[in-house]
């Protein structure tokens, strides 16, 4: 049972434009959501997170939006740069689960076209 889903396996965006990556979840106990970026042969790098008490969090070029009623979150990257080309994973955790383990989506490969 895939509790965190990223339905787009890949996305291509022109440099300078906005990249929008989407993520859906099914478990209503999730109360914290994170985005990671992963380059080949490296571990995931934490990008940005959002608590379920908020609907938006911004950090520089990165903004995460959370729609709890739709169980949907999105990551916006503006403007997109060639170095943003990577695989992006969304992840969710729940304080209810005690150790707050992360459940990951399947990833979206973002390619920025110069």
């Amino acid at each position: 049972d895939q509790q965190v889903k990223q339905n787009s396996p890949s996305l291509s965006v022109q440099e300078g434009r906005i990249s929008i990556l989407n993520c859906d979840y099914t478990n209503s106990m999730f109360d914290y959501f994170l985005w990671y970026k992963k380059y080949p042969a490296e571990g995931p790098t934490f990008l940005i997170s959002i608590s379920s008490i908020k609907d938006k969090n911004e950090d520089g070029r990165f903004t995460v939006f959370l729609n709890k009623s739709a169980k949907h979150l999105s990551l916006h990257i503006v403007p997109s740069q060639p170095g943003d080309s990577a695989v992006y994973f969304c992840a969710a955790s729940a304080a209810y689960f005690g150790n707050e383990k992360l459940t990951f989506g399947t990833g979206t490969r973002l390619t920025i076209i110069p």
Partner: protein
Amino acid sequence: SAVISQKPSRDICQRGTSLTIQCQVDSQVTMMFWYRQQPGQSLTLIATANQGSEATYESGFVIDKFPISRPNLTFSTLTVSNMSPEDSSIYLCSGRGQGARAQYFGPGTRLTVL
């Protein structure tokens, strides 16, 4: 963010042998985790490494196959035992600080079993 290192970075092993992966974290980390990323798949939690006691394993993972030690706060090992080609994956260590929700990942160990 926490500084996390792993070794080896990669290895090629024969079927039936075992490999121990080491993870070192800085002192900000209180909780440590081990994940696996099989080819083309997402990250899956293997277990939570508990200091001075047995690890807490996720469904589908057992101690006999993936023994884990955490003798102190900043060091843990994961052993992949009696390996088969299906164990070929990237194995990742992560850590989380006290009161924090984000996990930070090591660079991973790429394991190929022939």
